[in-house]
């Protein structure tokens, strides 16, 4: 039984990796290429959610600025693709990405130069956000800024980047952002079905690694110190720990994960724009984690996929209702389900509910879980 439980996530992963693309290919059960692509995006958002969980769920620091790192990752990969692709759609007369023409830019801004190289760009996807996260984090944590002040300052930093990217047409194409659909990667057009399936699979391959990294960070005494920082930081200090490097490291890792997330998301959505740095996007990342279950590592993955899937469903059926649903979700999770879905199951919320209704645990669990298949699947994912 226990072995089976451990295998479940891997089975699900394999299912998503092999079966879903095949289903999309043959349009089985109406599961289209488009849906597959959406799921690829949801899974890529799980990376940033893992990062948010590290910094918020474990360390208790609510960052409202993860959008910065997410976007930076996206911009890095998008600019690389735009630079190396040479076709009529993306390349302007001067050999640079087309949008530069609009602003009469003939020389590539210097900081984009390294992005001609594929390895450099791939490394930049997580190194650039990490370095910036390290810098910002060091400045903030050094001064013992925490709690809501940390949240507010990360939000202010987000606004700095947002206004900068929005206002700088000549450097980063302003509001319009960078588009990747018509660029080429590995000899495929990034917007084509083949490339999208590839991205989907890359996302699924990378996800366990991100998970294991987080697992490694959180399971030992390092992870214990993170929880200790959340519970009582001054106390930890009096025990001889300097919390600053711990927090910086976690923030850096979260930033790197956000960068990877942004890059994967960008190639699958075809665009990165300053909208990824809007206030709401960064707060939403937090709610994915809250819904899934903060302080667990499975939770954020469930949350990111589930909430975004819900978003697609609701906004397709009834666009106006999504804000209501989302708002209610925030309130509901915070007030009534602080442990999130995964935490609710693992911390006995589910069994205590069954017990409250006087249903004997064993006999009732199976039909109940069978009935709600999605819950069963999601809660053990990865």
């Amino acid at each position, binding site marked *: 039984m226990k072995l089976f439980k451990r295998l479940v996530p891997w089975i699900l992963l394999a299912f998503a990796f092999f079966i879903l693309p095949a289903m999309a290919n043959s349009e089985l*059960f109406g599961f289209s290429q488009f849906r597959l692509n959406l799921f690829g995006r949801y899974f890529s958002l799980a990376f940033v959610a893992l990062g948010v969980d590290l910094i918020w769920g474990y360390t208790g620091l609510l960052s409202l600025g993860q959008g910065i790192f997410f976007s930076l990752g996206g911009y890095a990969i998008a600019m690389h693709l735009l630079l190396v692709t040479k076709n009529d759609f993306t390349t302007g007369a001067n050999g640079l990405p087309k949008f530069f023409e609009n602003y009469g830019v003939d020389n590539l801004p210097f900081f984009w130069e390294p992005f001609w190289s594929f390895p450099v760009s791939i490394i930049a996807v997580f190194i650039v956000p990490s370095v910036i996260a390290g810098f910002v984090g060091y400045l903030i944590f050094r001064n013992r800024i925490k709690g809501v002040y940390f949240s507010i300052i990360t939000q202010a930093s987000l606004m700095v980047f947002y206004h900068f990217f929005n206002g700088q047409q000549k450097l980063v194409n302003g509001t*319009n*952002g960078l*588009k990747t659909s018509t660029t080429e990667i590995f000899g495929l057009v990034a917007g084509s079905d083949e490339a999208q399936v590839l991205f989907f699979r890359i996302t699924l391959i990378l996800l366990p690694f991100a998970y294991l990294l987080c697992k490694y960070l959180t399971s030992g005494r390092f992870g214990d110190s993170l929880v200790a920082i959340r519970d009582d930081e001054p106390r930890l200090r009096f025990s001889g720990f300097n919390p600053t490097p711990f927090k910086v490291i976690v923030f850096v890792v979260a930033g790197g994960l956000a960068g990877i997330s942004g890059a994967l998301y960008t190639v699958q*959505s075809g665009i*990165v*724009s300053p909208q990824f740095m809007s206030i709401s996007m960064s707060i939403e990342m937090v709610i994915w984690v809250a819904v899934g279950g903060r302080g667990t590592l499975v939770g954020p993955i469930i949350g990111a996929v589930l909430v975004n899937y819900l978003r697609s469903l*609701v*906004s397709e059926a009834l666009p106006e209702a999504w804000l209501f649903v989302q708002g209610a979700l925030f309130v509901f999770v915070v007030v009534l389900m602080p442990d999130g879905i995964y935490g609710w199951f693992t911390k006995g919320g589910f069994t205590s509910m069954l017990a409250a209704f006087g249903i004997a645990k064993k006999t009732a669990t199976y039909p109940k879980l069978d009935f709600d298949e999605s819950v069963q699947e999601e809660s053990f994912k990865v």
Partner: protein
Amino acid sequence: MTSSIPKRLLAGFAATAVGVTMTACGGGDSAGGGDFDGSIKVGILHSLSGTMAISETTLKEVEEMAIKEINDSGGVTIDDKSYKITYVSEDGASDWPTFAEKSQKLIDADKVAVVFGGWTSASRKAMLPVYEAKDHFLFYPIQYEGQECSKNIFYTGAVPNQQAEPAVDWLFDNFAEKYGKKVYLVGSDYVYPRTANTIIKEQVKSLGGVTVGEDYIPLGNTEVAPIIAKIKKEFPDGGIIINTLNGDSNVALFKQFKAAGITPEKYPIMSFSIAEEEIRQIGPEFVGGTYAAWNYFMSLGTPASNTFNEAFIEMYGDDRVTNDPMESAYNMVYLWKAAVEKAGTYEDLDAVRDAMIGIKMDAPQGPIEMYPNHHISQTVRIGEAKDDGQFEILWDSKTPVAPITWNQYVPETKGYACDWTLDRPDAGKYKM
């Protein structure tokens, strides 16, 4: 939009829970009912939530109206068979990536024959690569900055030579004597105002004038005090102001202009994004007396225009107004229908796109025609905002003006043109 919320929501959940793609929206009723031989599915993609919902919902309404009119009068006729138009409406949520995502959904999942959508240039720029990558088909209804010519997009709004350029000429003709050939440019901080202003600056230069100031406000920002200070410094006794602000900032601008004594009597203000709807939102007492350049005004008064206005009011209530973007959105549905009928197919997108060129139509604004550069010829008009929320038309171009996509004032694009009927790889931008 509050109608039958639970039904649609529940239907939505039920449908998607088993992984079935849905067509649960708006008019996507069961296909081929009634007297029709079949149906054609089209996509409508505008922001129904978020900042841009204010403007874009009106486009959705007018597109629905055009579709309804076409269906009521027998639908689309191909090879003597009549087809009903059904549509899937998606929400762009004022978020550019969402526009790209939803475009993909409409093309891949809903398999629509064409998409009508967008408002901001940023949303169009976000969608463009999707349509190019999938070699699909988009209609875009808003006046924009030009400097673009995609094989996969048809543009039914004005390009600068059909709006901004004649407006600048007109301003100089009427006010240069009094205030000199000096202009001050105010715009929202995104691609349309910036590109439009680049063109205007070149034009002003070639007319022997100077641009004394240029300012951009982030979208949605309502603090314009610093700009007022600068204008007052440049134009202590009045001068020409050209306004390309979008949305909320306009309200702030005009309210604060009035408070600071920048009134139309001393400061002729020409706006490119203020139509009838915006007058109502800003308040006629603030914009009254300022000018706007459009291809269509609700007060036009021709029979075609009156029919259009009445149909809209009939459908959506007598407190509503029509405007240029709406007229443009209305036209594009008819243009597409005509092209499908001419091509004899709606599935072969290449054939429909080829057939599109040369289609003529008697639009509410007057005659229009689709040019080989995927833009349409339009009549240019300049109006003055009045207290009743309408415009008084002061000038018009008499005949439709042919669209020029690659601007001839801007050095980088001077001498370039676009013609998709040419069989050459650089048809989108070739040297004349």
